[in-house]
């Protein structure tokens, strides 16, 4: 479904990604793990067209999207929930969701309203706060809003960048349960995480990024049991 081939990205003289290749099939949860600064976020931003690529090719649903603009890529059915949530702080919760619906033009008002209701049943807490400004929500609620906003366009693939960042452990569990729930409803998911144990335990497959290169890959279970992964990312 999504295929990244030989992707290299650099910011000025600093190389962020070197020759990264990976693939995601329909219906999978794939996770990309790695320590801070390994290039995980850069990788997602390159797929979404937010940073220029030096070399490499990215294909989505069989179409070359390497040089497409971000909004075009989104319109094709790829939703990217960015790191640090980046919700619109002075738009209300409801308006944030409506903004999320822009990714799929051509739907009627009724269809969009229906999708909003679906999000509210998935995230009941957002419904209580529908007229509140996005910036007044707590961290966990903001993360839920960011995911809900990403789902508003009913994407084919959902890319999540560090959804557990800065959340209390109990909320992290809630978010991961949600991701599995979304996956069960038929969405393909690319998950980026520093919380490697959690991510690998729900993922079909995983890739380990180390200073901009893919160091290891395998199924979630394989990586969880890998000696090297255990010592570096799982704390022994």
């Amino acid at each position, binding site marked *: 479904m999504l295929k990244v081939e030989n992707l290299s990205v650099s910011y000025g003289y600093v190389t962020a990604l070197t020759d990264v290749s990976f693939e995601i099939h329909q219906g999978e949860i794939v996770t990309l793990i790695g320590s801070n600064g390994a290039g995980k976020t850069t990788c997602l931003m390159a797929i*979404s067209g*937010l940073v220029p690529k030096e070399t490499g090719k990215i294909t989505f649903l069989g179409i070359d999207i390497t040089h497409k603009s*971000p909004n075009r890529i989104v319109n094709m059915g790829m939703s990217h929930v960015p790191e640090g949530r*980046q*919700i*619109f702080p002075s738009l209300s919760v409801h308006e944030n969701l409506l*903004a999320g619906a*822009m990714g799929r033009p051509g739907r009627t008002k009724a269809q969009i309203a229906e999708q909003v209701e679906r999000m509210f049943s998935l995230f009941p807490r957002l419904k209580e706060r529908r007229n509140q400004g996005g910036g*007044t929500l707590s961290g966990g609620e903001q993360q839920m809003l960011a995911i809900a906003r990403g789902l508003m366009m009913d994407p084919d693939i959902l890319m999540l960048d560090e959804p557990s960042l800065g959340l209390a452990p109990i909320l992290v569990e809630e978010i991961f349960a949600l991701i599995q729930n979304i996956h069960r409803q038929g969405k393909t998911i690319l998950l980026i995480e520093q919380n490697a144990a959690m991510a690998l335990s729900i993922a079909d497959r995983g890739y380990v990024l180390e200073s901009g290169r893919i160091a290891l890959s395998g199924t979630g279970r394989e990586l969880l049991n890998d000696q090297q992964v255990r010592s570096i990312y799982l704390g022994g």
Partner: protein
Amino acid sequence: MEYILIQFVNGLCQGSIYALMAIGYASIVGVTGLVTFAYGEVMMIGAFAAYYTFQYFADQLLVGILASFAAAACMGFLVYKICYERFFDKPRHISLICTIGFSMLVKNLAQILFGANTKAMPSVIQNFFLDIGPVRINAVQLIIVATVIGLSGALYLLFNKTQAGIRLRAVNQSRQAAALVGINVKRTILFGNCLGCGIGGTAGMLLAIYYQSLSPTIGSTFGNKAFASAVAGGMTSIPWAAGGGVLIGVIENIGTAFLPNSYRDVFAFVFLFIVLLLRPEGLSKKEGIRP
């Protein structure tokens, strides 16, 4: 005392035009993320578009509003194409200097095309007076205030009740997040810039009607007042920018009750100076914070 009251009413009227200018300015800065110095010239073009429309086509206010808005919005398109489009990823001062150059070019071209002398703005508003106690309000003032309130209301609806409004506000708050929900950021910036310039053009026409005169060099005073109002209000907050505009209008007019008229502009900028000393972030409170 009566004189001060009269000046207060005059100030409200003039301030309402400043408010409209500031609304346009804040819309532009909000969506482009860049300060513009071409705004005064855009307003001047709007005023001239209305002037020629009144001279040669129809002397009706509504037609003038449309003509000034359309001409200034076209200027906004040019500003976008010349000063912004290529420089989004470049350092911000490039666009900024570009708008300064653009404003000089427009000002001088306008002197060649329209003539450098001051022209009399045709009076398109049937005059009558309304006496409320000691204060006499004339039709021009009433209609200007009504126009400003009408336009602001329309803008409020546009910003808060439409898809385009959500797009504009989303781009205003985070360009990256807006791109990631599928908003065409460049087109939204173009739209917001044209909209803000159009509003400025109409404000320029109203000022010309208020002063009953216009010339190609009025732009810099206009632009500075718009800038001062928007900065006082906190730069990108539209309601506060409007508030800043009204305040500056009132302060200017009450000030001239005590000092000669030639000190008029001093008040606007001394006021701005004081605001920035006391509240560097402008009058508005920062967004995203719990009240």
